[in-house]
């Protein structure tokens, strides 16, 4: 195992840049169930640079949401982080004014509900959840919940916190913030709710926002507005964003860097332009092929990825994607798991196609 971590540790330098804000290394989150062990996240590594937008793409069930929960340390039992590191570098973003956190911390080493983790959660790393309707409590006013988020991390009086909440509401483009703050989430429209949710996440001025499919539950026009808002706020608040989605179009608009996941593993990662214009991994290629394009011929069946995602309990042996892969190499792909390797200096790809000599006999399977 030590050998493996070394290899991935070496990866950091490859991505270049300064010290990352967050580095996830070989993260494994497993769910022991009666029926067997679900390897929801199985050896995921990536970095988030300060101010960077990292998109995590993948079909449902690929482990992107669990990865996000693991970073926040809110994976529900029976799920457990069984291996790996989540290094949070608090110095990385420069000004450390309000932060209670100093230096580099491995979040995996903290108690999930301990004081240290709770000081990071919400204050340093905040979450924008998927469905704003369900993400607010229906029996508390939105303001109540936003003010609570502020006062958890900042020593402010009730009225000062309320003022800050109103300001943040204005920042995220909610009109009449003084009135809206006293309404209930179900009295708001979908777009407004999502804005309020973003305001709540931003209120404590976090360095890292994790947006879990923030636009899936709202209609297309509002979606565009929310994306525009997030792009704007990213500069105003100087926060990095981990953007989780299955929508490649959104990724292309938002992200600087992309991580492609499949069945709990990273298939490929790299800067958004490289990954989209020169997709190396067969899975990435297949994903991109299945996007309808303005240029594509009308009335032609859209290419889809053949087969369906295997069930979590019977994950295929070898490369998880091999049963659906067009470049499947029998005897190689179904025997060993490929590792994430740098290819042409800019992308990291986990595929035997980019291996001179597949390590057949390393006995890992």
């Amino acid at each position, binding site marked *: 195992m030590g050998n493996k971590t070394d290899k991935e540790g070496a990866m950091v330098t490859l991505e270049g840049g300064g010290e990352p804000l967050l580095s996830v290394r070989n993260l494994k989150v497993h769910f022991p169930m*009666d*029926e067997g062990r679900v390897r929801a996240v199985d050896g995921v590594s990536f970095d988030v640079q300060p101010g960077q937008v990292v998109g995590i793409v993948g079909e*449902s069930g690929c482990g992107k949401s669990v990865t996000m929960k693991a970073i926040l340390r809110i994976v529900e039992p029976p799920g457990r982080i069984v291996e790996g590191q989540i290094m949070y570098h608090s110095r990385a973003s420069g000004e450390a004014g309000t932060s209670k956190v100093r230096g580099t911390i491995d979040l995996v080493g903290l108690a999930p509900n301990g004081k240290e983790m709770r000081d990071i959660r919400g204050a340093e790393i905040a979450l924008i959840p998927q469905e704003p309707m369900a993400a607010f409590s229906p029996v508390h006013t939105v303001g109540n919940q936003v003010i609570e988020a502020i006062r958890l991390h900042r020593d402010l009086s009730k009225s000062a916190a309320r003022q800050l909440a109103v300001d943040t509401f204005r920042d995220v483009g909610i009109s009449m913030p003084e009135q809206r703050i006293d309404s209930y989430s179900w009295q708001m429209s979908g777009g407004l709710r999502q804005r309020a949710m973003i305001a709540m996440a931003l209120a404590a001025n976090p360095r890292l926002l994790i947006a879990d499919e923030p636009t899936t539950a709202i209609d297309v026009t509002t979606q565009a507005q929310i994306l525009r808002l997030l792009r704007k706020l990213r500069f105003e608040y100087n926060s990095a964003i981990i953007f989780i989605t299955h929508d490649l179009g959104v990724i292309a608009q938002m992200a600087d860097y992309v991580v492609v996941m499949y069945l709990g593993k990273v298939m490929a990662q790299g800067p958004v332009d490289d990954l989209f214009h020169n997709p190396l991994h067969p899975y990435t290629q297949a994903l991109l092929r299945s996007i309808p394009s303005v240029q594509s011929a009308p009335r032609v069946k859209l290419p889809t990825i053949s087969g369906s995602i295997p069930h*979590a*309990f019977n994950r295929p042996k070898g490369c998880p994607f091999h049963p659906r892969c067009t470049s499947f190499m029998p005897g190689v792909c179904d025997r060993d798991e490929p590792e994430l390797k740098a290819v042409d200096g800019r992308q990291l790809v986990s595929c035997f196609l980019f291996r001179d000599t597949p390590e057949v006999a390393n006995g890992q399977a």
Partner: protein
Amino acid sequence: MEESLDTAPLLKEAIPEDRVSVASNAQLVWWRFTKHKPALVAMVVLFMFFVVLLFPAFFSIQEPELTDAKLAFIPSQSLHLFDGAKLRPWVPTVVGKRNPTTLRMEWKIDASKKIAVRFLSQGYPYKIFGLIPTRLHILGAVRADEQNRIYLLGTDRLGRDQWSRLMFATQTSMTIGMVSVALSIFLGVLLGGISGYFGGFVDLVIQRLIELLQSLPTIPIWLALSAALPRDWPPTRVFFAITIILALIGWTTLAREVRGRFLSLREEDFVLSAELVGCSRMRIILRHMVPTFSSHIIATSTLAIPVMIISETSLSFLGLGLRPPAISWGVLLQEAQNIQTLALAPWLLIPGLVVVIAVLAFNIVGDGLRDAADPYGK
């Protein structure tokens, strides 16, 4: 997390997947039910109750009405299977002595003198289902002259054998519980179905009626109805009247449930697709809708039976339900009404224990069924 934790293949390990995909709803329910161990145990207990219900006389040892005031308040004699190392069942004798000051008989268990008993012995004559004459009983003394000396659960104030009475009481009380639930279901499904099916004015009238009945205080109304039964009615007629009284108040909950299910099912995709395929209305209701909620109905009614049993027991205990010579759990418990008597003969509470066991068993089985009734749910 939800994405990766699809629970559909819960049954995968036990049953091959291809069988799961073609299994009927009832099969799926049953498979899930069998995974719930307490429910299976409770099911076995219920099964034993049913066997007693069918053959109470076989399980009794003496005639339930056999009275002998001289033999009042004999404590229970425990049944021993082994005599030394040999399998030779026996019960200890009881010796009575009159207390000179209280003039009461005081009974002592004397384990040194054993009454040999055997299973499947010949006892008093009776007819199975009122048809087949026989003398076979589960247990009896080996020597016929000791026939009257086996009181597994003691005797009551009139020297009647509580064990044997309990067997007949089980028949009565279980029957009342189940028949009244069956009546409730009939009324509930009928009116609930009509209400949900026709909607509109009929629905409105039935709903108001249900609301009216539900806002009546249940227990006082029960009492008033039971008190209205003429005192001189024969036991069987009282039995049926009590059953109907219990059902009259119980059906409203069921009707609401059926109607609710009916209404929500009407909106389901599979009903729509059945309509689009061109199924007739009757076929949709009988083949598509009823099966999906029948398991819920079964679960709900299993959970309703213990409520009825407790109601019957309470009514009879208060003297407003069944009355002697009928024998039910409540009637048996009437003997335990007096605290002085109870202090003297605590075994008179045993019927209460049986009530608790029966109610527990029904509740556990009902819960198991309800959880299993939703094979694709969580």
